[in-house]
Each structure stands twice: as C-alpha cells, then as structure tokens.
C-alpha cells in the first residue's frame, strides 16, 4: 500500500555549501505566547530540509514569518547572503520564496490556469486575457508536475489533492528559489503521495531549496537530506538524515525519551459511562465501538482526518449517526442535538477553540456560564451574583489569568482561553467529558496544568475521552488508548504498556491486533 514510503532516500546528503536562505535568531511573540524564540534555520540550494516538531512547536509560524505573513519581533532573513525584509507575501514571492499552504488559497470558481496565473494573467490588446498563452503555459507547468487534469478545469471541481497540485503549479510560475511545503501530504491519499515526492525531487534537482514540514517520519526519512527540530518555539538541533534514525529524531522532538508518570493516572473505574456499538456516520467513520468507564481516561489517537472529531461530534449530538448506537450509563441514548447531549450530561471541549469553543467578543464570565445558563438564572433572568460565583470558582480552581471577568476572551492567551472552555463545561457538571485536542497551540505551562486537571477530574469520577494527535499527550494521560485510522478503530491499547511503535503503526493503518478490526481497506 505504501511501499514507496519505506525506501530510504538514495540521493547523496546535501553537501556543505553556502545556504541559499538563512533565518537567523527569529523571534515572534503573540499576545500571551512566545511562538518563536531565537530560532535559526537554513536551506541550501538543491536540498530538502525537513522541519520537524509537534503541533504548536512553531513550525508554521516560522514559515509564515519567512513568507511575509507575520512580521518577526526580532532576527534576520538572509536570501543568498543578503538581508531581506518581507513585510508582505507579495514581496517574499517576488524574491523567490513560495509557501504551499495547508489552507487553500485558491479561487474556487476560476479555472486551474487562471489560478496558476492569478494576479499575472498574460494579456494581449490591452486588458484582454490571452487565453491561448495562458493555457499553453499552464499546461506546460501541469505537465512538469505530471498532473492528470486540464488547465481548463474549474478548481471547485477538483479533489483536495489536485487543488494542492494547483498550488504547487502556482509556485512554479516564478522560478522559485525556495519552496516551503507545509504538511503537504495531510490531505493526500497514498497513491497521490509518490507524485508529490517526484515533484519535490524534480524541484530539488533543479537547484531549488525545499523546506518540508511534516511530522510523518516515513516521509521525512524518504525525502530529506537534513532534519531540523523545533520544540516549544525553540530551535532544537539539526541532523543529517543519513546519520540518524527515527528514535533519535523523536527524542529531539519530544525532548526526552518518552517516560510517563503512569502512577498519577486515575486507578478506580466504575461502570461504563459511554459505550459505542458499531457507530457509523456515512462518509466519516464506520463501525466504531469502544467504551469509557466512570473515572477512566480514554485517549483517542489518530492523524488529522482519521474521523476522531467526527466521532466526538456524533456523541455530542451534532451529527446524525447512520448506524450503530450510543449507550449512556447503560441506556441507549437518542441525541438529536447538542442541547439534548448537554441535558444528558455530555460535554465537548471542541477542537477549534476560536471557532467552536468561544464567543470571542463576549467576556470571560459570560462565556464560562454559557452552557449552563439555567443554573445561574431564575425564572429566565440571569443572577449576576451566581454567575460571578461560578466564574470565580473556576477561575481560581484553574488559575485562569485574566485582568477580570469583564475581559473579552478574544484578548486572552490560548491557554487561558482553553481553560475557560473547560470551565464552561465543568460548570454543567457533566458525566462524560470529551476533550478534542485540549492543548493544541497552548504554551507548555498551561499544557501540563491542563493534563493534571484532566487526571484530577477523572479521579473525581468523570468519564473522560481525550482526543489528540500528540503522542506524549495520549500516553501521558490515558488509561486506555483507541487508535483510529481512516474512519475506523484499528486498535485498542493499555495506556501504561503500549509501545510507541505500535501506536504509530496503528494510526497509519499498518497495525492489526486481535483487538482491532482486520484492515479491510480496499486496495487502491
């Protein structure tokens, strides 16, 4: 299935020559967080330099600084030895630095060719678009990328993978010096990946410097000549790919060989609080079965897009199951809306704090009480004193740092925002607490506080489901771990005894246990 991905890169490692691009001591601060602290990084012409790090380590921020989307608070950018200031994306692009985004930056209702040449359409007779030249030049680029679609296709009709190809094609219009790929394979299927690898190798052979951001080890070892690691916004070393192995890189990334305080995890479990039996939502996930006991923390581990959040949203009544059933406390539950789910004692701390978790323009207190307004109101009227009490209680319990309850949550740091979301749900006194990526984009201090809080909650009897794509997080808090891959549960592990290898295999679809379902993925 993914045989191509295991072969080691056969090309010679990058020679020690002068870098085409250097970032020196870059610092970037956001309100409440130092995203990058004195980070240095360089790329040579004709090499693939992988940039590695956990979520929130600062990879994407660094690249946005490079592409002129963020203004750094300190440091230098040197292109071919000359210092450059990129204060807007256009300037970076003109200098030959191209960022292939995770998020799509295409115009949907335009043709592929128009998107490739967006803003620089070839013209004739004044302002008329020269369609012949446009399509000829676009087709040339698409041919170089071995794309199967036509330059005349509408972008809105293309698959995500093909859209990504269009983004890459766009990068080739200006002969780029450095191309940054930010998690390029996140949305690609297995047989689309080799095409991307070919493109990257072709670019490299043409002397382009490639920055490759990913946290998939197999890809990085397959493609790159050097690997640099970021951790918590700080530079953590560079190694030659040929001289290292996955373990070593993992250690660099996580900062320690993984050791966990299993003793601090909750121990006493009650009956099943949540049980899923063959839960299915068509097109999202299928036949998902597992249970969470009272007082137990179950981790759900898998890559983005494996269907984890969708499972959580279904339990929370936001999606309609097309098959299977949800049992709460032993009873089959019919959850037709999030309102009913809350009434049944389910809480969901969603994945996207800003879009799903908070009303950014509302103050801290109002956000905190939003899910449990009944308990702080009488005959429909709010009781401000009761609200304040609730706010104070969780603000103190979780050490939320705010100038006061009137502060708009949009002005808080990520960690404090997340604590408000958690507080909002604790206030509803749920029986089942689901946390989807509870520490994404949060500073280290808040991270460990939230982990401790999760364990504490379970000890007081909550059934907790933690969804995460960060291995240390899952290993650090879970009693049991459910691995998901491609919309299915592939394995279930004891959280204290599982090996990291087994986990990685389970979420990349290579692992089959007696506990997991046989891999019935149709061969592509």
């Amino acid at each position, binding site marked *: 299935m993914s045989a191509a991905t295991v072969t080691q890169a056969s090309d010679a490692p990058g020679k020690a020559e002068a870098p085409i691009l250097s970032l020196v001591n870059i610092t970037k601060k956001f*309100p*409440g*967080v*130092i995203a990058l602290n004195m980070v240095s990084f360089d790329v040579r012409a004709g090499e693939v330099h992988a940039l590695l790090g956990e979520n929130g380590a600062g990879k994407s921020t660094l690249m946005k600084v490079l592409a002129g989307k963020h203004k750094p608070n300190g440091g230098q950018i040197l292109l071919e030895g000359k210092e450059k200031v990129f204060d807007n994306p256009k300037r970076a692009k003109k200098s030959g630095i191209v960022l292939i985004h995770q998020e799509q930056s295409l115009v949907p209702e335009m043709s592929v060719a128009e998107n490739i040449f967006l803003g620089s359409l070839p013209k004739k007779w004044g302002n008329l678009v020269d369609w012949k030249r446009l399509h000829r030049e676009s087709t040339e680029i698409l041919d170089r990328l071995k794309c199967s679609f036509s330059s005349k296709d509408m972008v809105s009709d293309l698959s995500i993978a093909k859209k990504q190809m269009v983004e890459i094609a766009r990068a080739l219009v200006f002969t780029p010096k450095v191309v940054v790929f930010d998690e390029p394979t996140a949305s690609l299927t297995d047989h689309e990946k080799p095409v991307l690898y070919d493109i990257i190798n072709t670019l490299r052979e043409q002397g382009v410097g490639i920055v490759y951001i990913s946290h998939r080890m197999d890809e990085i070892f397959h493609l790159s000549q050097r690997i640099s690691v970021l951790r*918590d*916004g700080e530079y953590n070393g560079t190694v030659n790919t040929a001289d290292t192995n996955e373990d070593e890189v993992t250690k660099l990334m996580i900062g320690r060989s993984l050791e966990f305080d299993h003793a601090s995890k909750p121990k006493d479990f009650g009956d099943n609080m949540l049980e899923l039996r063959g839960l299915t939502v068509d097109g999202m996930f299928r036949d998902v079965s597992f249970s969470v006991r009272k007082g137990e923390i179950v981790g759900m581990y898998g890559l983005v897009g494996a269907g984890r959040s969708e499972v959580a949203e279904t339990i*929370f009544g*936001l999606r309609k199951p097309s098959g299977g059933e949800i049992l709460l406390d032993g009873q089959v539950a019919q959850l037709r*809306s*999030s*309102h009913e*789910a*809350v*009434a049944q004692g389910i809480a*969901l701390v*969603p994945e996207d704090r800003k*879009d*799903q*978790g*908070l*009303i*950014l*323009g*509302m103050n801290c207190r*109002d956000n905190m009480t*939003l*899910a449990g*307004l*009944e308990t702080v*109101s009488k005959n*429909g*009227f*709010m009781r401000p004193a009761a609200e304040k009490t609730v706010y104070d209680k969780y603000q103190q319990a979780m050490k939320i*740092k*705010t*100038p*006061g309850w*009137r*502060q708009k949550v949009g*002005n*808080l*740091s990520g*960690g*404090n925002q997340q604590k408000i979301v958690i507080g*909002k749900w604790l206030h*509803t006194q749920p029986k089942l607490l689901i946390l989807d990526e509870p520490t994404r984009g949060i*500073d*280290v*201090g*808040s991270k460990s506080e939230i982990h401790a809080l999760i364990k504490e909650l379970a000890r007081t009897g909550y059934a907790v489901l933690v969804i995460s794509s960060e291995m240390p997080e899952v290993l650090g808090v879970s009693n049991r771990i459910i691995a998901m891959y491609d919309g299915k549960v592939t394995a279930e592990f004891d959280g204290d005894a599982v090996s990291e290898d087994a986990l990685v295999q389970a979420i990349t679809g290579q692992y089959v246990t007696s506990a997991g379902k046989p891999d019935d993925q149709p061969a592509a």
Partner: protein
Amino acid sequence: MASAEHTKQGFMLSKKHKAGLLNFLSAQGILVFFLICMFAFSLTSEQFLSQSNIMTVVRQASIIGIIAVGVTVVIIGGNLDLSVGSMLSFSTVLVVDLHDKIGPVGAILVMFALTLMLGALNGLLVGFMRLNSLIVTLAMLSAIQGLVLIYSGGQNVDIANQSDTWFGVFGQGYLLGIAVPIIIFSLLAIIVQVVMSFTGYGRRIFAIGGNPVAAVYSGIRKNWCVFSTYMISAFCVACAALVLGARVMGSQNNVGQGYELLVLAGIILGGTSLLGGAGSIWKTVIGVLILGFIQNGLLLMGYPYYTQWLVTWVIIILAVWLDLANKRKRLLTRHS
C-alpha cells in the same frame, strides 16, 4: 519563563480599564453626537426644545422606533430582516380593513395572528432551514407586498365611521398626558432591552450572533432562538401597524414601503453592528430619535424635509467609519 512572560502579557490589557472621560465619550460617540445636535438645533430655534415639540418628534419617530426594536433583536442574533416594510403595509391594511368588518377587537387579534405567522415563516426559513436571511427577507418583502395588493385589490382602505370607535386611541390617544404611541414604543423598548440584557434568552441571542458555531457547540438551540427573533420582529411590526392604522384611520396599500431601510438606518446610526453579537435597544432608540430630531430640526430651521436625507447619508457613513476606526485603534494598541 514562558509562564512568567505569559502572566505579564495576560495583564497587559488592564491599562485599558483606566477608562477616562475621553474614552467614555469616544465609546458613546453617538450619544455625544446626539446631544450636540440637540444643542445646535435648540440654538437656532426656540421651539425646538419645547416639550410639545419634543413629544411630537418622539411620537412621529415611534413607528420606526417600534419596528427598529424588533429588527435590532434580529440583527443582534446575526441576521437581517428586510421584510418589515411590506409586513407593516400588510398589517396596517389588514387591521384597518377588518375593523369595519369584524370590529376592532377581532381585527386586532386577527392582525396580530397573521403578522406573527409571517414572522414564523421568516423564522422557519432562516432559523430552521438556515437560508440566507438577506435574500429570504428580500423575497418576503416582495411576496408580502404582493399579498397586500391582492388582498386590497390595489385599493386603499379606511375606517368608515371614525368617531364611533375607540380604535383611534392607539394612534391619537393620550394616557396621563403622554401620547399612546410613545407609551407603546417606550414599553416595548424597555421590555426588550431588559430581556436582552438580563435574561438567559438574551444572552443566547448575543452568543448566536457572536459566533453561531460556538453557540451550537455550547448546547444552545440556535434554530429556535433565531426563529424567535423573527417572531419578536413580527410582533413589533404588528404593534407599529396598530399605531399607524389608528393614527391615520386608514391605510394606503404600500404604506410601509421603504420602512425597512429607514429602520436599518436608525439601527446603524445607533451603533449596532450588522455583523451580529453586539448592540443594544437603547442605542437603536437613540439612532431613531436622532433621525427624528434631525428631520424636525431642519424643518424648524426652514429647510425642506428632504434635506434630512442628505444629512442622514453623511452621518451614517461618518458614524460607522468613526466606530470602525475607533475599534481598529483599540485593536492596534492591544497588539503592539
């Protein structure tokens, strides 16, 4: 280290709370503007600040004001309602026409019921079917105007025997020396303001307007809430129709034409953002009153009535522009 830094930045904002008079003034810019206008007009015309003149202005503004109260709720919930103009024609024609046929009580009851049904239709389409509120209410604007014309056969309606009915009290009557339209307007404004500020329902509407996705993820029944905002809007229109019908004791079949935009103008002028999640009834009341007093003041100064439209144009854009610039400035100081 990260955590210490974090604390410092977390509190960085507290400076903002030392809000002086100047900050208050810039935040309440529209109120200040209102007072300046009042002052300027009072200098040019002695009549302007007389009690009777003020009462006349408020009474005239009360119809737009009553509707604006309801539409403000819809807007805070993150939607728009353009159908109120046609709905006002519909309800006024209905109540006036039915008055002679089934008597005032029946006419009022039927009018309220049917108006609320139109509101329910809006609410169904926007709240439950999640259609774009601008286009839905634009379509309703057209459809309801058509219904009015079909119902009235293109004729204007009036109440035949105006001296024999108590119906006129809603438009012309006085209670304790205050005009009934003003009482209805004030009561509605106060009740709705209280509901929006002090109840869980109001909190939910603000949440939905602020971030509909997060509201749903907080277990709020968004569909019902949005539905209810259109019911409130329709109820307010019905009240306005009562006042309008009773004042004129008759109705043209397109009497409400253009009201939707005047109402919006008042709301925008008051400073309620069309994006939803923010705003208040009292701001809307002020916005509507500004429109009323500008009209009145210009008339008293001897300008023809249409000059108010030019002034409205300028102040709408200035008000929103300054508001935006103000917010942007605050945002910049926050992130620097």
